């Protein structure tokens, strides 16, 4: 099973217009991707609960293929923690996604510690945009995983172009830290797979406009790595299925 661990469903962001869930699923299926984890994008700017509801209804259009991760605004304090619980228990979401620089909070925000503990209690991972100082630098995000060893934290971009050495260092040390492959250079992914083994890498494309070419570029990146087919299968979906408790992987 191939799972794209990093996609966005949204209505409008900057000058981008989101695509329909069925369009995204068709695009993904046409290149052999079975399922996708979907995040909001416009929900990083306002009304997280409202956008969580919206994302839940978008994902419901393709329930067999799409898996929703919600988001919350830590400035809302305990209401944010309760919203995490609602996302998972009532909306059926499987994880939470954060974009600290777009959402304008520091990863050291005290509420985020409570959110991390709640995610651990619910058994769902937290994904962060990373690789972008000063609010989303890779060590800032990794430090949250260091503070909360029971919480699974995914570096959404494996450090991007400048911080992938940080992503590698912290993931080597922390067993609760995972790497989503989208955005990191090819050579970085090869080094990560060589150093960490295949179990901590999750394939992702950042498809949000569901451009087939972009999804293909990311898929072919994983397929071009110098790894066994079994290891590639783990990165392409096996690891994500295990992390989310999806059977049939």
């Amino acid at each position, binding site marked *: 099973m191939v799972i794209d661990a990093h996609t966005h469903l949204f209505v409008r962001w*900057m*000058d*981008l217009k989101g695509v329909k869930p069925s369009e995204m699923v068709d695009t993904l299926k046409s290149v052999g991707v079975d399922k996708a984890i979907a995040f909001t994008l416009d929900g990083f700017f306002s009304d997280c609960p409202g956008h969580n509801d919206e994302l839940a209804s978008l994902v419901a259009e393709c329930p067999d293929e799409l898996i929703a991760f919600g988001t919350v605004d830590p400035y809302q304090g305990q209401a944010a923690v309760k919203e995490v619980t609602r996302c998972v228990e009532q909306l059926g979401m499987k994880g939470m996604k954060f974009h600290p620089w777009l959402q304008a909070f520091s990863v050291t925000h005290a509420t985020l510690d409570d959110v991390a503990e709640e995610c651990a209690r619910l058994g769902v991972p937290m994904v962060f945009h990373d*690789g*972008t*100082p000063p609010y989303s630098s890779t060590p800032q995000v990794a430090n949250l995983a260091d503070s909360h060893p029971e919480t699974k934290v995914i570096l959404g*971009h494996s450090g*991007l*172009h*400048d911080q992938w050495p940080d992503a590698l260092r912290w993931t080597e040390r922390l067993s609760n830290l995972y790497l989503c492959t989208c*955005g990191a*250079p*090819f*050579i*970085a992914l090869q*080094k990560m797979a060589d150093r960490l083994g295949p179990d901590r890498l999750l394939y992702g494309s950042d498809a949000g*406009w569901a*451009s087939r*070419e*972009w999804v*293909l*570029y990311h898929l*072919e*990146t994983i397929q*071009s790595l110098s790894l066994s087919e079994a290891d590639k299968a783990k990165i392409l979906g096996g690891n994500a299925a295990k992390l989310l408790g999806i059977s049939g992987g």
Partner: protein
Amino acid sequence: MRTKASIIDAHCHIGQGYAMTQTAEELLRQMDECGVEKAVICSAEPQIAVYNREGNDFLLAAAKDHPDRFIPFAACNPWFGARAVEELRRCFREGCRGLKLHPPLQGFSLAQEIVYPLLEVCREFSAPAYFHTGTLLCSEPFQLLELSRRFPDVNFIMGHMGATDYWYDGVPAAAKTQNIYLETSAAAVIGSVTRSLKELGAGRILFGSDSPIFRLKLELTKIQRTGFSPDELGAILGGNLERLLSAAKA
């Protein structure tokens, strides 16, 4: 329309470094596999940052061994001052066709005037200057715009178009001037970026792979899938760079 055999990769590395490690033979093998005729070669990290002369000599020797395949771009760390200027002159005299600068590796900011003397040498030899861009504080697209305006008669290559975090600045910065060319390696050439590139015009885009950091074949396929016309693709895949280099004086 250009034939597949005349593709030129505007940005590759050879040498022994941190992530930029590959031999000339490895690069040639990938070029052959992808139908890439020529490639701009740059040094690996230690030679870009510190051991400039050793790296430049290595590039010149590789280009001498494969004169029809490699186009060497010299690395000179501007902090070496007059020695860097002297080294760049030597490199241009001995066959380098452009300058490669990497602010985060070399420890300077595009806003610091220490880079001016090297750009004056580029002007003198009509050679383009390639800049890594995309890294916070020291190599941002609008920093390059300001620098390019100080040297209107030097051609600037904006490596990676500002990717990753400055992906939305690359095209707008280039659109404000005539002497910035956008090099595509590592950049997300999709959606709104492709649309704005088309508005800017294919004449300002240079295909590059940044091999071995990124995979030559995947970077090339990325550009071939953008939906540019065959003529535009021909320009992007080699014609534009050829034109830029033809102005250079040896």
